[in-house]
């Protein structure tokens, strides 16, 4: 395999693992926000920001962790046929079906970028009293989806390598 493709796979996967492992701990940020919501409601006035902040955190958790979850193989496949195929056959079919993933994520990103630009243009804010700007969370979604697309191409390169009998 050409050296730059191998390097691409190595770099992208290293980056995605790193980001995913950081995003993984957003679980506890989420729990902390929700616990603060319980406490502030019980002892002080209910906090205005907890609900939205929790929602933003949840989105960041599964979007930024998305590429890492792909690497972990956490996303189920229907393995009625797939489970019976040889490694080469799987790689061959994956080479084609990966484009379903890339196209889906690509369209999500397309809509996301337009929506982010719009958020900047009009200074879009959420409808709540806390009124956070919406651009940051939209950027987070776009970045996570973009990383997943990069990861999908890394899978594609790996599959092509497998077909050519090379291990990356």
């Amino acid at each position: 395999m050409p050296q730059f493709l191998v390097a691409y796979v190595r770099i992208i996967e290293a980056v995605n693992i790193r980001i995913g492992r950081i995003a993984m701990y957003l679980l506890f940020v989420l729990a902390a926000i929700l616990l603060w919501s319980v406490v502030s409601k019980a002892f002080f006035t209910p906090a205005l920001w907890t609900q939205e902040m929790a929602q933003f955190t949840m989105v960041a958790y599964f979007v930024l962790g998305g590429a890492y979850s792909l690497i972990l193989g956490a996303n189920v496949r229907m393995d009625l046929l797939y489970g019976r195929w040889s490694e080469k056959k799987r790689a061959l079919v994956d080479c084609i079906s990966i484009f379903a993933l890339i196209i889906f994520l690509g369209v999500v990103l397309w809509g996301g970028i337009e929506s982010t630009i719009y958020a900047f243009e009009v200074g879009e804010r959420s409808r709540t009293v806390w009124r956070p700007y919406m651009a940051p969370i939209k950027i987070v979604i776009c970045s996570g989806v973009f990383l997943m697309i990069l990861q999908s191409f890394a899978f594609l390169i790996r599959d092509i390598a497998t077909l050519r009998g090379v291990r990356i």
Partner: protein
Amino acid sequence: MGYEFIALAMFAGMMALLLTGARVFSGIGFVAVIAAVALWGDRGGYDIAFTTSIKLMNWYPILTLPMFVWMGYVMSETRLADDLYKMFHVWFGPIPGGLAIGTILLMVLISAMNGLSVAGLAIGATIALPELLKRGYDKRMVTGIIQGGSSLGILVPPSIVLVLYSMIARQPVGQVWLAGVFPGLLMAGFFILYVVIRCGINPALGPALSPEERASVSWGERLRLLRAGILPVVIFGAMMGPFVLGYVSLVESSVIGAGIATLLALVKGRLTRQVWETCVTNTLGITCMFMWILLAAMAFGAVFDGLGAVRAIENLFLEDLGLGPWGVLILMQVSFLVMGMFLDDTAMLVIVAPLYIPLVAKLDLGMPPQDALIWYGVMYTITCQVAYITPPFGYNLFLMRAMAPEHVSLADIYRSITPIVAIMILTLAVIMLFPDIALWLPHQVYGQ
């Protein structure tokens, strides 16, 4: 292009893609965005997939998902259920099939402590199954029991499937959860009956513990083991109590549950580095899997709706087929069961439920629409349980294969579920005939 054609093409395209072994969410999402971009014409449509992520973000109760997943992993990985298993082992061991019965009861208690089936399956397959096999229990009977028992996790509250259902049906989660209690117990009862009958006919399927072994456990020890039963009561009570009484919200109760499970694991000193690592990464993996399937399936649903296909299906059921309300209901369940074989249960929930739920509300079933929707949630969940364990596509099958000992073959696992599925369908029929089994408890608690 006709609506019927669009509906058919979208479903067929999705099935074809899933058969290639593509990741489930990518297959669903791809069909959704292609249909939107191609069929919306020059009129936008491409932004539906992204706006779905915003819609998902606004779904507040979905925040319970990572909490329940975390809780389940902490419970199974730190072996919090070990003592519980020993308790049932000692108390039920002496009768034929007793260990299997004990395992079912264990599954019921685990179901009451977490919202998914994964934890139950993991605990059943790693703690109960090796022990049962060692004692000479019939491997097909017990693998089936563990799969059926673990699926109770989504029927007995708390349940993430019922949370998703409530969000789609716009019904109060508290009532929907409570509606699952008696159907869950009924199903567990049927499982026990099944074991009793089979072992009654052929005691070799489930040998009782020998008198020597029984004598080796003192009465003091037996009574001491009963204390293990306190754990599920504490966790279930701490989560459900404040929530049902209205002190905390649903999402907050899930955090409390996750916190208590974590604390218990810490107190027992079982939260090692390695266990921690497994819990954290698996929680991310499972949550991502769910969220991405939800995102793709919700986009699919919105596009399907926007292209008018939902109306076509409504007309088909309500007018073209000329069926009575019960006919429609039965046909819906049957089509659901068939689809459940092939579809992943989360995807099925999000794609099919929005099509069927409005129909249920419109049917004249002799009860108020809200009752009908709560009751349907239970039937719907039982169908999901069936989907969950039936080949060719069932999570339980994959997981069981990964966790079961070597000599339990895939063929054994496939065959083991036949009687279990039959029992689930029997339960479904009973709940359909007697809706009060589901509705009595929510009516009592929330007073209607």
